[in-house]
């Protein structure tokens, strides 16, 4: 029972709770926390200090930093890797990310074009 689980986590010493459960270490949590703080402070600094003086560039940077921070949380706090639960966690995540991207990007895209075609006077981005 435990030999298989040990083989997949050779570096871990604590198997008292469950051999195949996601494991954290103090170093991992602290690394994740420091990265998360840095990745949180930068976008707040960019927006509050109006550092770039360019709304489009700041928006793109804020979104990129958010995506990077989400990945950091997934790795260091949720202990996600391709081996956990025999890969099913990662498979479910990939499926969910695809659904999320289709839902959000698709909604914004479709509604943007609806606005462009039906309510030109109310457009905020550019006149229709």
């Amino acid at each position, binding site marked *: *029972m*435990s*030999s298989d689980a040990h083989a997949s986590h050779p570096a871990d010493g*604590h*198997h*008292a*709770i*469950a*051999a*195949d*459960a*996601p*494991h*954290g*270490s*103090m170093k991992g*949590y*602290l690394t*994740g*926390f420091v990265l*998360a*703080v840095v990745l*949180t402070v930068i*976008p*707040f600094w*960019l*927006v*509050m200090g109006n550092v770039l003086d360019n*709304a489009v560039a*700041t*928006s793109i940077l*804020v*979104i990129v*930093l*958010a995506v990077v*921070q*989400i990945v950091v*949380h*997934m790795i260091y*706090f*949720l202990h996600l890797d391709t081996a956990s*639960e025999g890969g*099913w*966690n990662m498979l*479910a*995540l990939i*499926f*969910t990310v695809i*659904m*999320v991207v289709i*839902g*959000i990007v*698709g*909604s*914004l895209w479709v*509604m943007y074009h609806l606005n462009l075609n039906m309510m030109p006077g109310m457009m*905020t981005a550019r006149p229709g």
Partner: protein
Amino acid sequence: MSTESAVQTAGQPAFYVTEEEHAHSSTLLGFWIYIMSDTLIFAALFATFGVLRHRYAGGPTAAEVLDIPGVALNTAMLLISSITCGFAMLEMQKRNKGSTLFWLAVTGLFGAAFVGLELHEFATMIAEGAGPQRSAFLSAFFTLVGTHGTHVTIGIVWLITLMVQVGRKGLIHENARRLMCFSMFWHFLDVIWIGVFSVVYLLGVL
């Protein structure tokens, strides 16, 4: 499964998967699937907010009603509660019941501070006439941020329940499994909050 029983079973090799281990494994995977489905709920709310974020209906704009220093403080509360939740998990792995309960309590207090600050923000906005009924932007704002806040509130109730269970029964296998599910849920809420503070607050006031 305690350390003692693990040592005993190591001496007597068992060539089958015990029911306990199987149930444990599928619980964590099943809970992950639940979290993924919850992600889809938030994706729908983010998409709604993204479409309606400039529909002010002549009411207050995002830059006028959103308080960035306040949300920075709120973000700090939730991020600190995430790391203290991690400390509780590490203490649980070391089977220190007292320190596990201590870090869980710290996590709950930071979570409660987050909910308190958010409720204060909501109350201030509603008092200024910027309630959810004012415009499509504010409806989408209160639905998205409020759903996240509701999740955190339910997480705190779950946390208190688990603290009572750990206090009475100790760090038994079942409680360890529940705490791992709770930890996934709590870190997941912090992940959602990254999207909220980036898209709703920071992009809102630009």
